[in-house]
């Protein structure tokens, strides 16, 4: 009896010892201060040297122990380093050579891609990022007609915020006005992969150029490059296949946003009316719905874009004699608004169909969903030739049920 209980005890102890010896957390344990936290990555491409320039922006790390690490010295501004190499990982490896902490992507927010990189190395670059599990696909992607390095080197002059944070915040706020909208890496990959849909992404600008490397240069690595300036997110970058096709301005970007059903929150009309009188109106969009209908007319595709908008008039000024915002004024405003939105969409369509010849609206994808067999048999192969000539009918239905509290214009004595 005693022998049996001893055997059980020994067995239990053996199992416990085995389990204790395999506690896993030890291998992956790391202190917060020992991580170089990357918030943004910029990628540029130098056509002349065929080199990739990778720029990393680190979050300023507060150290409780008082160690004088390089990140701590940078104060609130973080650090921006860049390195060039013939491969993406080569550049990353070079950057690791000058940073004495392990790279950590847990707080990664934005991937910035320069124009040349977007034109020449987009596909391999996206594939590499997609295969890097450390980077979350929910991070934003931004394109710039200039250099990604300049974008990340820009410190917002008004509140000394680092570019990674500023860009992420700008992407969230700019979407309300509709001139651009945020796109995550996952959404961008989906647009690249889905047949009949071309990719778009927001574009960013900076007034900072040729930033000096304050920490000097070692080999191909530029250390600590930052300069005060301003960042702007405006318009869109449009792609065809895996290459950058061109840029869309604010108006065209807004047109794309309306068609794709993006949640645009605010809209304004500032153009002079046909009679030459000035009119300004600012609307708060309470709901907007977009529907793309595709049909075959004489064996060729034709598109109907139906947009329904409900909004509230928030600010209004007119040189018209109308004293009250009555139903007649509202009707006129609805027509004006409808016309203005239609013109945004027409501008976007013209740009996409005639200039870029890139189906950023996903008409092909809609066609595939409705006529799957036909798409696979014929249209998928011929879509590049068909898309620029598709007739598009735009219907914008606007309702302004609310006009705010002031229903009468100011009367000057």
């Amino acid at each position, binding site marked *: 009896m005693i022998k049996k209980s001893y055997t059980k005890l020994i067995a239990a102890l053996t199992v416990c010892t085995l389990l204790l010896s*395999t506690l896993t957390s030890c291998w*992956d344990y790391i202190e917060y201060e020992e991580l170089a936290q990357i918030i943004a990555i910029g990628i540029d491409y130098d056509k002349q040297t065929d080199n990739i320039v990778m720029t990393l922006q680190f979050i300023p790390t507060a150290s409780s122990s008082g160690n004088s690490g390089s990140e701590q010295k940078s104060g609130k501004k973080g650090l921006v380093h860049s390195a060039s190499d013939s491969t993406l990982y080569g550049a990353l490896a070079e950057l690791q050579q000058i940073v004495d902490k392990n790279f950590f992507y847990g707080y990664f927010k934005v991937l910035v891609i320069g124009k040349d990189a977007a034109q020449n190395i987009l596909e391999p670059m996206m594939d590499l990022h997609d295969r890097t599990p450390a980077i979350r696909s929910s991070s934003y992607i931004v394109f710039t007609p200039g250099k990604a390095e300049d974008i990340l080197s820009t410190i917002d002059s008004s509140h000394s915020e680092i570019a990674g944070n500023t860009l992420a915040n700008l992407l969230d706020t700019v979407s309300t006005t509709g001139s651009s909208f945020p796109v995550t890496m996952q959404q961008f990959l989906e647009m690249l992969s889905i047949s009949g849909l071309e990719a778009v992404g927001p574009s960013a600008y900076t007034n900072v150029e040729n930033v000096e490397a304050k920490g000097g240069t070692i080999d191909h690595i530029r250390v600590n490059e930052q300069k005060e300036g301003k960042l702007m997110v405006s318009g869109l970058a449009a792609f065809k296949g895996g290459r950058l096709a061109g840029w869309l301005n604010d108006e065209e970007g807004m047109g794309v946003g309306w068609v794709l059903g993006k949640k645009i929150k605010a809209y304004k009309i500032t153009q002079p009316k046909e009679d030459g009188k000035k009119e300004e109106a600012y609307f708060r969009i309470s709901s907007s719905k977009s529907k793309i209908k595709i049909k075959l007319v004489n064996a060729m595709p034709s598109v109907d874009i139906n947009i329904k908008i409900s909004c509230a008039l928030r600010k209004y000024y007119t040189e018209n004699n109308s004293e009250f915002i009555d139903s007649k004024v509202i009707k006129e405003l609805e027509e004006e608004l409808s016309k203005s939105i239609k013109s945004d969409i027409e501008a976007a369509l013209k740009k996409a169909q005639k200039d870029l010849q890139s189906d950023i609206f996903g008409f092909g994808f809609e066609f595939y969903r409705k006529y799957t067999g036909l798409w696979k048999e014929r249209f998928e192969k011929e879509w590049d030739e068909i898309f620029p000539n598709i007739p598009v009918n735009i219907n914008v239905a606007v309702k302004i049920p609310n006009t705010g509290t002031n229903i009468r214009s100011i009367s000057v004595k």
Partner: protein
Amino acid sequence: MPQNVKLTREQIYFFTYLGIIGNIVYTHTWIDNDANRSAWVATFIGILLLIPFVLWTLYLGKFSPESTIFDIIRDSIGKFPSCILCFIFIAINICVAATQLTMFTEMLKVFVLQNTPPIVIIAIMIIIAFIVVNSDITVIGRLVEILTVIALLNYFSSFAFAFPKMINIKYIFPIFDTSLLGVINGIAFTTGTTSELLLILMMIVCNIPEPFKHRNWVISGIFSSAVVFSLAILIIMAMLSPELAKRIAFGGVNSARLITLGSSITGLEIFVIGTYQIIALGKTIMSMYCCWISFKRIFGERKTRLQLALAALVLAIPSILLKSYNSSYFIAVFLGRFIILPFLISVLILASIGIKIMKKKKGCVLK
């Protein structure tokens, strides 16, 4: 013959769940590849197609209620063919557990424990499985019951936050955008892979009270898991798009990584990883149990603890040696496509012949 311990209705139901959902959590990309947007339909039908084989197994259990399917073959056809089949059965169970453990370990290494040696993770799973299998089948049943409920809650509570913002209905329709052959391939692959259920069912059929009479216990489990798993595939496709879903083996984890709650919580993958861990542990327990029972049929009821230790060892060694996620993935696909179901059908045919022989023998005795 001693009476076997009987499992409850709930335990059988959850055994069915965990029996079906095994390597398919990683290899479902193969179904996506075959069946495109109709992958979830193919999965649903494929899992339901297990029902005839399950009924067959339970029907055989009716004639010899206290025996496993291999016991029927041993008693009717002979010990040697039964031993050969047991060895193949053990080999298949080892492969299923080894691929499952390796894929789970590699997934953990990719997303969470980059620096932890895989041997440590595998060793922990094997030790836990050893402790569980060392106890009674009812304890295994109770554990499976609890673990499956936790796993399901974990999985769907994380994806609940994906609605409606991250679900793109356009990625689901049209449902049938592929050829009939593609859908059939998807269905065949699903049935083949999920036939892992039969591996455990052939062993626990003796623990089901009046197996054929209580066939609804298993069938309801199959139906529920068909709904749950096809729904999981549907959610993954609606979140990632079918084009991306077919190239990502950790579809569930990748989708959950996209879920954000405000600006402070990014990614709920930890819940899905928890579910995968429960599946890996459950599968290891089941495979170890199957190996152990088979060893007992080969070597008899002597030194059973030693036989269990041997079963744990034969599971641990290939799992540790396999190391590669890619190899595991393709081995799992190969097993699902060509090995598991054909082998199990052969066993069922032999057991059916055995039952015929037994009936004849009984008839002779009666004469």
